[in-house]
């Protein structure tokens, strides 16, 4: 899937809430064995997907000093919309100063809503409809109390501004999407938490779609694992992306810079985007990055980016992902956690 006009990422920003919650508390509360992730990032009581998306987008704008009025589209991909009906994207667009000459919408495709927004942003710019488009993947991941997902659900995400290749810090060589109707994970209307299909979420869902998308884009571009410097995969836990990388022939060091789930958990629609942001933080001109998301339902979006010389000028302009990881305040009390996550509400 190629645009008529070559495009790329011209800037990016990320956000991770400062609060951390040890999953050993969940093991004690629910009498379950320890989960795969030691601690999760969780939103503060006054944070939600919208405030977090505004933070990440503001950082992306600040990095290059772009006039927000030049942004022609603001798209937010998330599973945790504060409003069921009413766009999150309009609030984000208004808050960053992009309104009113702008397109805005929320994207829904479970954990790949963010990359769906990225692909559409690339298409908007690549068709000449817009000079700049902003794509955000952000989540305050939801989970049923006591469910396996509660042991991995984190909060965070990233924002990417797309523009023409000449202005880009990483230009888009190719993108590809692979989708089937596979009901591995869903949340029905009017229900507060998602359901998942246990072991069904692994092989038939995550691995089938992510590996198919990755293999296809590598086939289209004629590239193999050794041609990439980094690979970023959707990361519902530490094991899945590591195993997927291994199956595709990647070495652990190619995946490690963008693998954040061991530190903050699964940020759903933010997951692969924040991994991409962390990878761009360390990437050097000329390096090539494979990015593959996975969204339940199910599908994967794959991207091949090549980093340009312009990335050097961005270094140090805004806090890197690592500084958000290091900025931390522990909340190791299930009651507080439940309040912060809006699992219980004052009557």
């Amino acid at each position, binding site marked *: 899937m190629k645009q008529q006009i070559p495009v790329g990422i011209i800037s990016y920003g990320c956000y991770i809430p400062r609060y951390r919650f040890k999953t050993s508390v969940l093991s004690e509360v629910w009498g379950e*064995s320890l989960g795969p992730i030691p601690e999760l990032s969780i939103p503060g009581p006054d944070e939600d997907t919208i405030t977090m998306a505004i933070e990440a987008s503001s950082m992306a704008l600040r990095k290059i000093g772009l006039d927000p009025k030049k942004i022609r589209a603001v798209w937010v991909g998330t599973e945790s919309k504060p409003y069921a009906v009413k766009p999150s994207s309009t609030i984000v667009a208004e808050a960053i100063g992009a309104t009113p000459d702008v397109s805005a919408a929320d994207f829904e495709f479970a954990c790949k809503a963010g990359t769906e927004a990225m692909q559409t942003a690339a298409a908007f710019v690549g068709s000449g409809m817009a000079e700049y488009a902003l794509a955000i993947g952000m989540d305050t991941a939801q989970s049923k109390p006591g469910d396996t997902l509660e042991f991995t659900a984190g909060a965070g995400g990233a924002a990417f501004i797309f523009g023409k290749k000449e202005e880009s810090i990483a230009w888009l060589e190719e993108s590809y999407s692979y989708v089937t109707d596979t009901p591995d994970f869903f949340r029905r209307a009017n229900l507060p938490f998602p359901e998942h*299909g*246990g*072991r*069904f979420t692994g*092989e*038939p869902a995550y691995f089938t779609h992510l590996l198919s998308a990755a293999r296809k884009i590598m086939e289209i571009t004629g590239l193999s694992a050794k041609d990439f410097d980094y690979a970023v995969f959707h990361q519902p836990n530490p094991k899945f992306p590591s195993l997927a990388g291994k199956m595709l022939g990647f070495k652990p060091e190619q995946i490690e810079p963008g693998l954040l789930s061991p530190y903050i958990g699964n940020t759903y629609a933010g997951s692969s985007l924040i991994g991409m942001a962390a990878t761009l933080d360390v990437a050097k001109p000329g390096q090539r990055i494979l990015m593959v998301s996975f969204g339940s339902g199910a599908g994967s979006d794959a991207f091949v980016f090549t980093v340009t010389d312009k990335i050097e000028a961005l270094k140090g302009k805004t806090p890197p992902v690592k500084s958000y990881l290091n900025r931390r305040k522990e909340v190791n009390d299930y009651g507080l956690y439940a309040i912060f996550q809006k699992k219980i509400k004052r009557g």
Partner: protein
Amino acid sequence: MREVAIVGIGQTPVREHWDRSLKQLAVDSILSAMADAKVEKVDALYVGNMLSYELAGQENLGAVIADQAGLYDIEVSKIEAACASGAAALRAGIIAVAGGAQEVVVCCGVEKMTDFLTDTVSQGLATAADWEAETLHGVTFCGLNALLMQRYMYEYKVKHEDFAGFVVNAHQNGISNEMAMYRNPITFEQYNKAVEVTAPITLLDSCPICDGSASVVICPLERAKEFTDKPVKITGSSCAYERVAVAARKDILFFEGVYKSAQKAYQQAGRGPKDINIFEPHDAFTIITALSLEACGFAEKGKAVNLAREGKISLGGELPITTMGGLKSRGHPVGGTGIYQVIEVVQQLKGQAGKNQVKDCSVGMTQSIGGAGTVVVTHILEV
């Protein structure tokens, strides 16, 4: 009564078959067994299955599967005996052939379990217990077996780690069985560190939830040479049961149903425990293996774990068990299991067990147990 022989075998790999339905799995193994026996027509199909209603919304399996397999104008029915359903289907076939009612019969065992989450499958499996006395009060199958294991450890002063040998042996044997679900070795250390499911049962004491189907073609022994050069004789076939509710039993550490079933099969075959070269027990949980070995007369009460410790159950030992991985490593597609066990013994008796071949093997025994030691079907096979 006519003597009966097995003249064809067919099995699907035991897996999480996300892309195959109950019907497809059953048809795969039926057609493969018929091809092995080189028959295009059979006279009857008996399908062993436990959970098709709960997990596939399907009953009337005999007809549904015969239809899909293109086996028109034959006798069909589904046989249900909880986890012993597959073995009970074989026994139904044997009765039909031995009594002269049928000539060439396919006995199929099938289960499709992975379309639902564990809770639903556990609820389905728990229907094999006594609803009023047990299930209603919330106990699961794992829970019932945990009670047995706890009592066993207490009465006989046996430690949990003493059961490790059964699991290590099963997984070692499963490595070279292409049909097995888990073809990885398990070490003593891994066993001892396994996650607890229902104390004292851990994940590695337990067999997996999985999908699979296995079928055999049987006929009168006198006609067996029409279909194969190497027929396997069924010299013992028995079914016995004991009180369903575990609490209603005189001695919960002695599987009365297993004892009665084994004794009947021994009598029919004119054999005793010492004559059995290999044994495929119903190792759904390690405690079931131990109690089965004891009730079948292979070990004294409280001493079964010694067989594992002393290496007597390995392929080169005195009584090799779970020779192709057992329920633990090959997997336990509930209604399919009884037929998988029989096929594995057939392979051993015919010298077709590959790397797992047991030397000088001419008498083998299989045993399937439905419920917590409740319904027990035993078969003795010979060449």
